[in-house]
């Protein structure tokens, strides 16, 4: 495989292992032993999560979802990071990490409830070691940090036992880097030398604000001032994201402490389906980034240089279509919430006064049903 590797490297401070043209490049610090079959599996991930995204946007247009936060353009970052996790590692997403959810085996439909307005997340973080989405910008970085404190107290770092040593991976955006919470999580993680990896998807925009509104220096540099390493990776290069995240997670598990990864990528779509980016950015910007598409480069590599079965692309396409159908049909029958969903999980032990309100609300809901039935 080494004959495919070229030594070109466009941006000196950005780790890249696969060029936009689909050429493997090597980086001394991030050797990546990966087979073509494994690359093909990543390709499948990339295509399928993009399809989930496409379907969700369509569902939103049809009024089936209230909102959707698209990951278009960020598939490489998310699949690279997500596939670097081991099952017992824990991941904390913000609200756009549908690709990471995919890598954690979270059913895409599970994600839709929040956007459809039938629940607020509603799943168990323990089932797939993937926390519920967090909407308050940056808050989850502290949760990840605290979780990592727990990991340390459980004696689950630095033992050398791969089934025991545990890392925590937390996602946030370029905008989030300005929040106090994110910086406090850097403080706590550095001071405690915690097994947490901060994965910042710098998609160049926080809604309408370019990253320059947040920082005048590359975001990965933030870490050094807190006393831990930061690295910028080509966020559209799934291989580089995989290699860089894997190393950071390894470091975390072996008690080397935190790492900040800045995945340099681009939000190709509006911030959410509510947004109108024509107000604040030029379409030409997206055109430029399209040339760096995270999927195209893997396809180019596979098509040109890998020994994969001839019907591979067609079979992924087929799988993608089936996934889309599944999402379309199943999402429409997502159960609407009832009184129980509103009251039963406010507390573990429901106070009497709330129980009375619950009854009142249930009565009201059934009175509506009765008048509907009339």
């Amino acid at each position: 495989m080494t004959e495919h590797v070229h030594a070109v490297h466009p941006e000196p401070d950005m780790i890249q292992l696969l060029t936009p043209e689909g050429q493997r490049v090597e980086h001394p610090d991030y050797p990546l032993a990966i087979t073509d079959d494994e690359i093909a599996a990543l390709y499948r991930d990339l295509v399928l999560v993009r399809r989930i995204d496409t379907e969700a946007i369509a569902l939103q247009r049809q009024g089936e979802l209230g909102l959707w936060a698209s990951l278009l353009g960020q598939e490489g970052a998310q699949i690279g990071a997500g596939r670097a996790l081991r099952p017992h590692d824990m991941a904390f997403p913000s609200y756009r990490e549908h690709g990471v959810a995919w890598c954690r085996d979270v059913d895409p439909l599970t994600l839709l409830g929040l956007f459809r307005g039938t629940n607020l997340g509603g799943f168990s973080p323990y089932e797939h070691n993937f926390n519920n989405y967090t909407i308050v910008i940056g808050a989850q970085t502290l949760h990840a940090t605290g979780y990592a404190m727990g990991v340390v107290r459980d004696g689950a770092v630095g033992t050398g036992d791969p089934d025991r040593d545990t890392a925590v991976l937390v996602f946030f955006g370029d905008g989030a880097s300005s929040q106090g919470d994110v910086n406090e999580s850097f403080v706590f993680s550095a001071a405690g030398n915690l097994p947490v990896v901060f994965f910042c998807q710098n998609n160049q925009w926080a809604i309408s604000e370019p990253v320059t509104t947040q920082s005048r220096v590359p975001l990965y540099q933030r870490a050094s001032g807190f006393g831990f390493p930061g690295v910028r990776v080509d966020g559209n290069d799934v291989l580089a994201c995989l290699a860089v995240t894997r190393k950071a997670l390894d470091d975390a598990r072996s008690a080397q402490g935190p790492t900040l990864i800045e995945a340099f990528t681009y939000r190709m779509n509006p911030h959410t389906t509510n947004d109108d980016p024509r107000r604040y950015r030029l379409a030409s910007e997206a055109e430029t980034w399209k040339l760096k598409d995270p999927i195209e480069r893997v396809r180019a590599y596979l098509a040109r240089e890998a020994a994969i079965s001839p019907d591979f692309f067609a079979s992924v396409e087929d799988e993608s279509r089936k996934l889309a159908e599944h999402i379309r049909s199943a999402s429409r029958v997502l159960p609407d919430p009832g009184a129980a969903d509103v009251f039963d999980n406010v507390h573990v032990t429901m106070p009497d006064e709330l129980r009375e309100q619950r009854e009142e609300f249930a009565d009201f809901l059934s009175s509506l049903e009765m008048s509907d039935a009339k």
Partner: protein
Amino acid sequence: MTALSMAKALNEGLRKAMEADPKVLLMGEDIGKLGGVFRVTDGLQKDFGEDRVIDTPLAESGIIGTAVGLAIRGYRPVCEIQFDGFVFPGFDQIVSQVAKMHNRSAGQVKMPITIRIPYGGGIGAVEHHSESPEAYFAHTAGLKVVACADPSDAYWMIQQAIADDDPVVFFEPKRRYHAAKQELADEPTPLYSARVVRPGSDLTLVAYGSMLTTALEAASVAAEEGRELEVIDLRSVSPLDIPTVLESVRRTGRLVVVHEAPGSFGAGAEIAARVQEQAFYSLEAPVLRVTAFDTPYPPSRLENEWLPNVDRILDTVDKSLEF
């Protein structure tokens, strides 16, 4: 004069305030080119420049904290909090600095800061985008808390809030931003006064912000059934214009308070407490409240049922009248 939506009326009000005083600045997330996620600041950066309409880094404590510094330097910052649920990272600066600086400095420093918060639900949004946190601020000495309920009032009130030398937390009912349009009144009502919006003799209905429309709807329905509800738009949650409420309650003998926030320890409790104290013998029934339940804001598919609505208001009105 043409009728304006509430969003546009606020936009015009902000424009007027900026024209009137060069020290007025707007600051917040996405308020520049985007014009804010609700377009309330649409076009203002273009017209007043990036120095006066500031897209800040994404940090609410930073927004409020720097506004405090700007106020010390003599500016009048108007901070936009993108959604109600995102005011909390800035809560410390609001409660411990904005509210207290004037007092700490024995009156030497003024804090003419307006904190605009699009608040409340009913727009099908996700978590943290539909909160009604007014009681937290009303319970904080040093802050004034108001809510506009219609476009004309929004236009005037935002200017009055900005002109006030005291800090004002300004709640904008986001679900009314693009609802009914209205012509602007020629004159403002004093900012901290309640106003009788619909006279009636059978019962007093007090509401503010988003709930005023709902209360008026309820009153219309009640009127069809022969019950005349007096509807009061509270406008200011703190200070409370209790005299106006009392005057009404002394006539009607009955009071129902409506707000979107969960009921327990909400603004309705204070109104009930004061009215029962000051009009004890006038009340023919206890003060009743129609509020959201004591739960986090629900998934949006249930918000219309969870929020106070005409049905629940009318039920409670019946309860009061039948007491």
